[in-house]
């Protein structure tokens, strides 16, 4: 699961740096924005079957790779 999410993130952010530091703030580093975030949610739904609505989470809940992994895992269970 973790590996798959990192693959998705790498594709959405168009940058392999996301793997280097899993606690990096992706919004602050300009790797994620509103558009990329929507793409991320679609990819998570398509590839992992986990549905997260755009208004369900705040940016602070999903601004690092680790937090995204945690969120998806908790929703999957």
């Amino acid at each position: 699961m973790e590996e798959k999410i990192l693959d998705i993130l790498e594709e959405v952010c168009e940058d392999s740096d996301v793997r280097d530091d899993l606690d990096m703030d992706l919004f602050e580093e300009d790797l994620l924005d509103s558009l990329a975030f929507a793409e991320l949610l679609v990819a998570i739904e398509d590839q992992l079957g986990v549905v997260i609505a755009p208004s369900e989470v705040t940016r602070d809940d999903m601004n690092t790779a680790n937090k995204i992994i945690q969120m998806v895992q908790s929703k999957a269970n």
Partner: protein
Amino acid sequence: MSFFSGAPFFGAVFIIAMLALFLGYTERPLKWLNVVTSILVVGFVLVEKPKQLFFFLMFYIIELVLVKGYLKIRTEKGRQVVTYRIAVFLSIVPLILCKAGEVVCLYHIKWFQFVGISYLTFRCVQMIIESYDGVIKEIKVLDFTIFLLFFPTFSCGPIDRSRRFVEDFHKVYKRQEYLELFGIGLEKIFLGLVYKNVIATLFFQIMGELAKETMVEKFIHIYSYGFYMFFDFAGYSLMAIGVAYMLGIKVPENFKKPFLSVDMKDFWARWHISLSEWFRDFIFSRFIMLSMKKKWFPTRLFGASVGFIINMSVMGLWHGPSVHYILYGLYHGVLLALTEIYQKKSKFYKRNKKKKVYRFVSWFITFQLVMFGFLIFSGQLSTY
């Protein structure tokens, strides 16, 4: 009585704040104070024009039935796209009727024209959307009522989210925590007063006394209007947030130094934030997600551009069915789309975006674009 102006309103706020302070200091719930004072204040404001009060009550009943009714259907029948779309559409019908009354040929329609309907509609629609998402599982009548009626944000926001609001509403604070909240609230109210009643007034006076004859005068006029808009609205928002804090509700911020924005996307992350985030979460993101799933557009960038233009056009239209509001929305939609294309495609941007000189130039251009946007918004473009 009207919101955030005049002695009756501020007198009422003073008494309410004292009562809140007593309850907060003695670690009692603020819940019922919120309910009673909101009913009273909103009632006093609307009753001055009984027709407003009547339409507000109609609106309240319609939306309550829709929100509760849709949630029941959603719980029993699951995610059905058709019922969901019907519910969303019906919930914005009162707003459509209200705005239709502002169109020249429909002046005789005077339905649902009451203070705050534009903002109240957001709160109802989002509850239906979040019910569809499965994020909202229960809506109590009391929670729904106070979420709509909460008097500091009733007429002009900031636009809160129901789940966040309800959590605060039921919270009983510890003395220290409440006093801190009260202090922050007080500070915000004073800052808001200075913004709105001192600085905004000053810019308004400059605009009034200046003839628009020479180029320089025209420029000063345009910039003064931009600053006036900011200090007036940001001041109002600060006061609303401040009073809400005193009542134990941490309403979200609305402005974050918008004139320091370095590009248009940055601007919308700093200007009328609760509105732009509402549009982001309930229109833009959903449009992008749907268009990706259905493969409507050949490229992501193309889809994003269409998304920005639709999103901002709806935002413009929401202000009112006038040409200048629609133009204002389109203007910002096109600028956001162009910004997105430029930032994704330009190697020059990627190489230079972190350099100081680049950021300064980018800030300068953004500032002019923002000011020109206000000029469109003012509906006075043709007079320059």
